[in-house]
């Protein structure tokens, strides 16, 4: 259950919505079409997406403790399953669904 009141929930959601819209609109405000984009930004355009995805993977796994509890075994097994499924079929949805199923099975049985 959320501890936030309805007003607080609404404010939280509006902050997240405004910040998300800002990240989408900002480039179009700063760089009007036809104006040159600085070289460093152009390089970032190429480099950053992969790096951010790496960051997000780590973010999702941030609460895994290899030395405590279930030692992150469900996560490890699920990620391995995804790796193998993805090597085999290259089907994004199959890999996501398969890995999630493995994780759910293990977390519900191992706890």
């Amino acid at each position, binding site marked *: 259950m959320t501890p936030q009141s309805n007003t607080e929930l609404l404010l939280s959601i509006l902050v997240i919505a405004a910040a*998300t819209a800002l990240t*989408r609109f900002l480039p179009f405000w700063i760089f009007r*079409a036809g104006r040159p984009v600085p070289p460093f930004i152009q390089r970032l355009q190429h480099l950053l997406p992969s790096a951010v995805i*790496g960051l997000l993977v*780590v973010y999702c796994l941030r609460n895994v403790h290899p030395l405590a509890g279930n030692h992150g075994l469900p996560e490890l097994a699920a990620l391995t399953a995804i790796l193998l499924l993805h090597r085999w079929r290259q089907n994004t*949805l199959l890999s996501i669904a398969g*890995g*999630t199923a493995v994780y759910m099975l293990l977390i519900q049985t191992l706890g």
Partner: protein
Amino acid sequence: MTASPAHPLPALRAAFPLTLPVMAGYLFLGIAYGVLMQHIGLGAGWTLLMSALIYAGSMQYLAVSLLAASFDPLSALLLTLAVNARHLFYGLSMLHTFAGLGRFRPYLIFALSDETFSILCAHTPPEGIDRGWFSFFVALLNQLYWILGSLCGAWAGHLLPFNTTGLDFALTAMFFVSFLNQCGKRDQRPSAAVGVGCSLLCLLLFGADRFIIPAMLLILAVFALEGRIRKGGAAS
């Protein structure tokens, strides 16, 4: 005979098949999202509001944990900017593509999700199809799938005939698959490694609750440094 170029229906017909994989993915991830919202006691109204106004899948998943904690708008703001910073780069890539699309432009920018971006990057409309309507329908259909999926999760999640504990792993799985796809491109491997390396380092140094901003800064610093070294190497 062919319809006039600005006619919307042929554009819808050209856009729809391209969005089918997104339909499957967004329905699945959207349902999981609606179920998670239910778990923290927020129903279809809140879910609809978020899917309509925010429309950023990974951020909405993370927002569930923000909304489940005590009110902290500053953290919400910073986390949103960090997680969605990649949009800046989608936008930069679309500056020219969206130029001249007039009335469609604001919505196209608002609804530029990862998946919409990848479709619009990879496909130009067939001959005789209006580019504005085509892009608009790709973006709109994708957002409708997301809204529909999340509403299904919110309304009918409790009817799912199985225990949904662990369903939130779908997000991790989604990012991991994107990561594998990026690593499949040889030229993307170094930056993917920089992303993981900097994040792990900052996770160890700053802990799980506050590592994301330092990690972003470290990644930018590594790329800036690498650019300087490359420049220096080219000059000498």
